[in-house]
């Protein structure tokens, strides 16, 4: 009977029910979208790093694994020096520079050594870098900027010729000649980091040890270490961002549910009076209100999850390179707990008002 009462309550006012569910779904979608963006960014970076095909990463002094993907403080001479180390089969230096905010970076590469180490690009359109103003874009960035091979594109205040569109998943979204980027950012003769490929991956530990002894203070990582390190929790900015989003989501969710349930209880003042006149206890009335809040929280969660697929479609359509959004099923229960918990907490105060309400006043409510 309680289920019937709750079901008929939510069914009886479909517009209010839909609005409440949508309002509860908003923070759920907000949380899932922003967590999905954080994870999509990290996963995209991991995939591109993995796509290089290197075994070891050589980083400038004083940097951490996931810091300073910007600028070029490492002398380029190290590229040749490292190439001569035992078991090193190939080495290439890369210059990174952030473009268009914090989410996209352009990579300056020495095309020959990069291809030697990483293998050839898979071209969807056009050809490789031939001239100083040539730029390669991966398919995501090309889609985002709506350009094709042969188009002109402005990046870092410079006009570039889109020489080719390549399959994504390798190093970066944008590639130019290393010297051009070095000159452009005022780091001539310097690189951001150096990738090494070994003659045999089984030698990674030996080479790492040798290099660490020889190049003291230079962070040296195996790519496996790098991949293991790619997580939101290891990137303080993203970690705090996710936590802040979570906090805001909980707060918005609570306020929204509180307002929604407050209105729902107010609208049903007379009905609560009727239930009380029939002898309904405080616990019974509170139970009905909490059950309804639970139903709305559950509905809001399901709608919020569905809407997060919508936001991913939107991101994929508008900003596939800059804002890749992952679907995060492991966060569905968390978002659900926040929504349902918020709904239950948010309905406590209006519920308490309802159970305390004088039945005579409630029955007189119009």
């Amino acid at each position: 009977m309680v289920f019937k009462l709750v079901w008929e309550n939510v069914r009886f006012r479909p517009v209010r029910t839909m609005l409440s569910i949508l309002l509860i779904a908003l923070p759920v979608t907000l949380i899932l979208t922003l967590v999905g963006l954080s994870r999509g960014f990290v996963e995209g970076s991991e995939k591109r790093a993995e796509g290089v095909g290197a075994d070891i990463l050589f980083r400038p002094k004083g940097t951490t694994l996931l810091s300073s993907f910007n600028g070029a403080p490492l002398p380029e001479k190290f590229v040749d020096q490292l190439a001569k180390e035992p078991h090193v089969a190939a080495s290439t230096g890369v210059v990174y520079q952030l473009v268009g905010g914090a989410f996209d970076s352009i990579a300056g590469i020495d095309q020959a050594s990069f291809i030697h180490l990483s293998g050839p690009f898979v071209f969807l359109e056009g050809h490789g870098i031939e001239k100083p103003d040539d730029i390669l874009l991966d398919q995501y960035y090309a889609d985002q900027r709506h350009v094709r091979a042969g188009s002109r594109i402005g990046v870092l205040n410079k006009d570039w010729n889109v020489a080719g569109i390549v399959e994504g998943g390798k190093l970066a979204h944008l590639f130019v000649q290393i010297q051009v980027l070095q000159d452009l950012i005022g780091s001539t003769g310097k690189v951001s980091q150096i990738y090494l490929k070994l003659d045999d991956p089984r030698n990674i530990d030996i080479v790492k040890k040798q290099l660490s002894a020889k190049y003291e203070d230079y962070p040296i990582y195996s790519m496996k270490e790098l991949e293991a390190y790619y997580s939101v929790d290891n990137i303080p900015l993203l970690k705090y961002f996710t936590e802040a989003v979570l906090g805001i989501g909980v707060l918005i969710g609570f306020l929204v549910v509180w307002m929604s349930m407050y209105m729902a209880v107010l609208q049903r003042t007379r009905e609560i009076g009727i239930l009380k006149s029939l002898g309904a206890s405080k616990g019974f009335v509170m139970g009905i209100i909490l059950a309804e809040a639970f139903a709305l929280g559950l509905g809001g969660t399901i709608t919020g999850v569905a809407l997060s697929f919508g936001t991913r479609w939107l991101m994929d359509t508008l900003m596939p390179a800059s804002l890749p959004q992952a679907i995060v099923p492991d966060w569905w229960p968390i978002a659900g707990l926040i929504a349902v918990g918020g709904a239950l907490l948010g309905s406590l105060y209006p519920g308490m008002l309802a159970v305390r309400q004088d039945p005579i006043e409630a029955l007189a409510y119009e």
Partner: protein
Amino acid sequence: MSSAPAEQGNAEPVNPPIIRVRGLRKVYQTGKVYVEALRGVDLDVPPGEFLAIVGPSGSGKSTLFHIIGGLTPPSAGEVTVAGRNVSAVGDSGRTELRRKYVSFVFQKFNLLPNLTARDNIRTALHIAGLPTDHFDSQFLNILNLLGISARLDHKPSELSGGEQQRVAIARALATKPAILLADEPTGNLDSRNSLAVLHILRDLNERLHQTILMITHNAEAAAFGHRIMHMSDGRIVESSVQ
């Protein structure tokens, strides 16, 4: 019809009274103003009586109902309903009184608008802790008497005013309460439906010996009661046996 002195409206009870009121007072506070709604009411109602209470607005008849029905506590005095001292119990005690011993029929019907007639009745049964999956034969007879057996699967908005009030009566009787309190039950009905509802109440009283207290403004409606009690300014001023 005989008229008794107004004193405190007591008819000599044939049986021990099912409602016993002594020195009942009720004071409401509206802002800084205190309103004395009841100024010392004494009343005995024997089981099976159909008592009509009449009086102008503000005479205290609704307040008397609300106290007897456990919707509000008295300020002073003693009220015993079906052997329970209502004036001595708290909110939960009054809730139990409404759940088990007293039922209301209101002028505005007060059906739950989102539920069918059947589910309105089942809600009352559920709250009273009674089975909700079927209606017993006695209650099916009541539904037949009320003429709503075929209208049970309709929501209030699909029922006429007269039908809604008959559903409200059915809901009130479903839990077999000791006392039925009807507050202006014909106030929102046309004369034909009013008459039908009054006949139903009298039938229920005669066939089931259901104790009924009915507030009304209408002298014709009051004439359906065994006894008519007049209230004015928070006091019983006249009581006449039919």
